[in-house]
């Protein structure tokens, strides 16, 4: 059986949110929402888990902290202990205070860039990638709910169609895949 995809278009984020709530309460699975800006509170309604990017940022930051510490210990203590005013760098701890600024900067550098790269890979956004929004207006002032028949085997295409029409849509598009 060919899969049908419904794109229900709304002209207001609050109407979409109410619509999504209504659909979900009836047991419909909403596979995607496209919007020009973040709709606050939509994620729990359509069953999206919160992102774990924050944990990754912490891990990247920790990596940066570690690298900076190991690096400066090697450069300034092991490999070439600089002797400034008769006070050579004997141990890392003796000189640690001078290393704080760079340790901090490098931690931030790794956390921010690691996180940004992960963000782009996970979101599948890279230079030259094609866009997947179903209608060019969804980056302007239209909001779209995507529903797939394959994920809603309980309902027939007609039932889904009827249910969507109750939710205050402005346009309804159907595609067969």
């Amino acid at each position: 059986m060919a899969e049908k995809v419904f794109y229900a278009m709304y002209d207001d984020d609050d109407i979409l949110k109410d619509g999504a709530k209504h659909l979900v309460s009836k047991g419909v699975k909403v596979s995607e929402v496209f919007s020009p800006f973040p709709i606050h509170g939509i994620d729990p309604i359509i069953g999206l888990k919160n992102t774990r990017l924050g944990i990754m940022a912490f891990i990247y930051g920790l990596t940066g902290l570690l690298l900076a510490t190991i690096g400066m210990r090697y450069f300034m203590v092991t490999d070439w202990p600089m002797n400034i005013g008769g006070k050579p760098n004997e141990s890392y701890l003796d000189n640690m205070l001078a290393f704080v600024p760079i340790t901090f900067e490098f931690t931030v550098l790794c956390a921010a860039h690691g996180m940004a790269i992960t963000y782009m890979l996970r979101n599948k956004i890279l230079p030259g990638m094609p866009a997947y929004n179903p209608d060019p207006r969804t980056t302007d002032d239209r909001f779209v709910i995507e529903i797939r028949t394959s994920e809603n085997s309980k309902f027939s295409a007609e039932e889904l169609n009827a249910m969507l029409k109750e939710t205050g849509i402005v346009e309804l598009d159907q595609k067969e895949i």
Partner: protein
Amino acid sequence: MHKEAAIREPLILGHKSYHDITEDVCRPIEDKAPKMWYILFGIAAIIGLYGVGCILYLLGTGVGVWGLNKTIGWAWDITNFVWWVGIGHAGTLISAVLLLFRQKWRMAINRSAEAMTIFAVFMAGLFPLIHMGRLWLGYWVLPLPNQFGSLWVNFNSPLLWDVFAISTYLSVSLVFWYIGLIPDFATIRDRAKKPVAKKMYSILSFGWSGRAKQWNRFELISLVLAGLATPLVFSVHSIVSFDFATSVIPGWHTTIFPPYFVAGAVFSGFAMVQTLMLVMRKAMGLEAYIHTKHVEYMNIVIMVTGSIVGTAYITELFVSWYSGVEYEAYAFINRASGPYWWAYWSMMTCNVLSPQLMWIKKLRTSLIFTFIISIVVNIGMWFERYVIIVTSLHRDYLPSSWSMHFPSHIDIGVYVGTIGLFFVFFLLFARFFPVLPLNEVKTILKSSGESYKNAPDAHHGDDKH
């Protein structure tokens, strides 16, 4: 939806819809550039090219073409560096610190303020690089293995901390700015009609589709980057101040420098934002988004940071007397009454007195007055760095090496040139990039837009959970 107190003034004036916001921001990009843009761009490009010429002459001839001498080894170059870095503090402060404090008025200005930040830090970074004399060996500041020289770079040195601080600040600001730009480029991409523009913006927008999960990640990364950038902003100018504070020159050797420099940086950064924003809102018809209330908020920041800077000046004077160190005391008496008295008193007038006028509501809500003060503040902040650097150096411990600094035409050319280059970048930004974070502005339309705010309309009610 978040309801806001009725007494709070709306941030978006007029009866705007989501589509109007898109239109207002995209139209200047899609329309032909006005004649004024070409004229300004031409002037900025000529000045910028003159600056590039001066830099090339400097690189070909050597740092000797500057007005430096044995006593005054640091003058305009480092003054300009600190001045530009300071200006480059407003953008990330607006977008990061104000994001953490949930200040919605930042949304209208954060995009262009961040652009300004990035371009200002470019200009700042240029000065230490050309000061090296051999620009092509600039990569020696990185910790490279010993084959390149006899030693590792010195991790104990504030100058190296500066390398790390400035490059981290620049690259993190750039990433923060670009992540916010991606969804807005997608909006322009989906509206573009000309094939070249469509192609360009579709490359720039990285294939953004606006899925719910993408927005979920977007909101988190904005928040975490803001959290990372906030201490970064404060660290950068603290580290710049260490360049002076860790030395033993009277007038530099003070523990007050880091907070004092950070406040000064925010002060001058906001002044530059005011200068640019007041012109931009008019030229691009964005008066509904950046209006008197935004200007007033920024003026309050200028007033507060200006007062901190003023307090720091007076504390310095007090400590120079109270410490009982005669060298320290002399450095300050010399600043106020020596041959550079005019620089000191220009600094005092521009930075201490002028922001105090902002206590008067009528003045801080006047756009013309704000524009004038914003320029006065930046002149004052340039003098501040000049006073700190040149007047502390010019009377050495040995009276036989006392000297004066006279800038050469190359000094002036390089400085003026960076202002030209800065405006070249900023004008290009204003022409091709969305100058407001239009998709973020849409999120505050219902809570802070004039047409929605305080309307007893049940249709746009609170969500029900």
